[in-house]
């Protein structure tokens, strides 16, 4: 992907051209077919993703191959943030519901850049924090609905 392509995506709007160049150099675009698993719960994660096109479902696994669908990842959203934080183990599985296209960013190399470049690190961590915050808020709301509060 080119830097200009990144600039079209809302997720990357605050980064400078130089910073986007760094991200582009450690990213690739991947495509998934319907029902294809992107990663399983408890997988060790090496990449952090931003969904470009399509729709993904997120959930947890139960014994006897049962999957509980808990949420949906929308276009433009970041997922697989556990790849940035030790122990880098996924807390959920993610599967493509429709044909999907994602930007896959090498998490080790991104971490190295975060440590080196403070401004870049701050912007990246802010975006990740915001994503997690929204997801937590939505999940709490979902929980309250289930508890009939």
């Amino acid at each position, binding site marked *: 992907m080119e830097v200009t392509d990144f600039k079209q995506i809302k997720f990357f709007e605050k980064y400078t051209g130089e910073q986007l160049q760094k991200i582009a150099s450690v990213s690739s675009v991947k495509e998934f077919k319907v029902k294809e698993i992107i990663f399983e719960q408890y997988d060790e994660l090496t990449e952090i993703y931003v969904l470009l096109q399509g*729709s993904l479902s997120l959930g947890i696994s139960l014994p006897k191959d049962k999957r509980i669908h*808990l*949420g*949906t990842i929308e276009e433009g959203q970041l997922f697989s943030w556990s790849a940035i934080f030790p122990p880098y183990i996924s807390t959920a599985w993610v599967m493509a519901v429709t044909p999907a296209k994602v930007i896959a960013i090498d998490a080790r190399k991104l971490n190295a850049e975060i440590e080196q470049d403070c401004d870049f690190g701050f912007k990246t961590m802010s975006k990740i924090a915001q994503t997690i915050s929204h997801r937590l*808020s939505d999940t709490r*709301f*979902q929980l*309250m*609905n289930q508890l009939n509060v």
Partner: protein
Amino acid sequence: MADTTNIYKPLKARLEEVIEESPLIKTFVLIPEREFVFGTGQFIELSVDGVGEAPFTPSSSPHVHDRLEVTVMKTGYVTNIMHQLKPGVMMGIRGPYGRGYPVSNFEGREVLILGGGCGLAPIRSLLFALEHMKDDLEKVILCYGSKTPTDCIYKPLFSRLNSIDKFEAYRTVDMSEEGWDGPVGVATTLLGRVKVKIENSVAVVCGPPIMMKFGTIRLLEMGYRDDQIYLSMEKNMSCGLGKCGHCMMGEFFVCKDGPVFTYKEIKHNPEIWK
């Protein structure tokens, strides 16, 4: 109006049909004795003869005056009895009461509707009203969440809306079920898909108090001003006339000053999400 001389006297209406929407929710089709005119978002007090009455916002089009549809969720004493009624009985209607959606303010704008649970009932009426004036609107988007796929009422509504020019409808569920491959998550998660020009938009939120609270927070984060967000507040509306005091929310009588308020009007009140 029910009775121009006596504000307490109901207008009689025959229950023509009962539609089962979900295990706990039924839609009642009522034929009033006289033409009944209401504004979308206004409510009525629907009574069971000799038992009691409860407030409901009609879910039918405000442009139809000889029949009325009211969606009733089985939650308490009166609604439990209502759910046992069979077509042919007479019911009582008092109203219409309150301040409904000011649809004339929506002309030339994009309308984003965020709904949850039983909130789809008043929203359905609003959608009919908006469809009637769609030439004067830029866009109408519905984001709706129900607990499970089975709990969603008016299932045919979504495909119908998506086939109308300028209308978009999205559905999500809190908990998935066998056979569901749509989005999972609360209604606010659908807002990520929505493309609106916020400066020229209004947002309407209708659903359980928790959903209204989270929805309002998310809309404000998106950039909506507090006077662009319309909330339908539920309270213990009883007389509907701004007199009996049961529906007071701070200084407002919800039955008279509402039930539709802008967030700006009520945000100073700490009780609004109770």
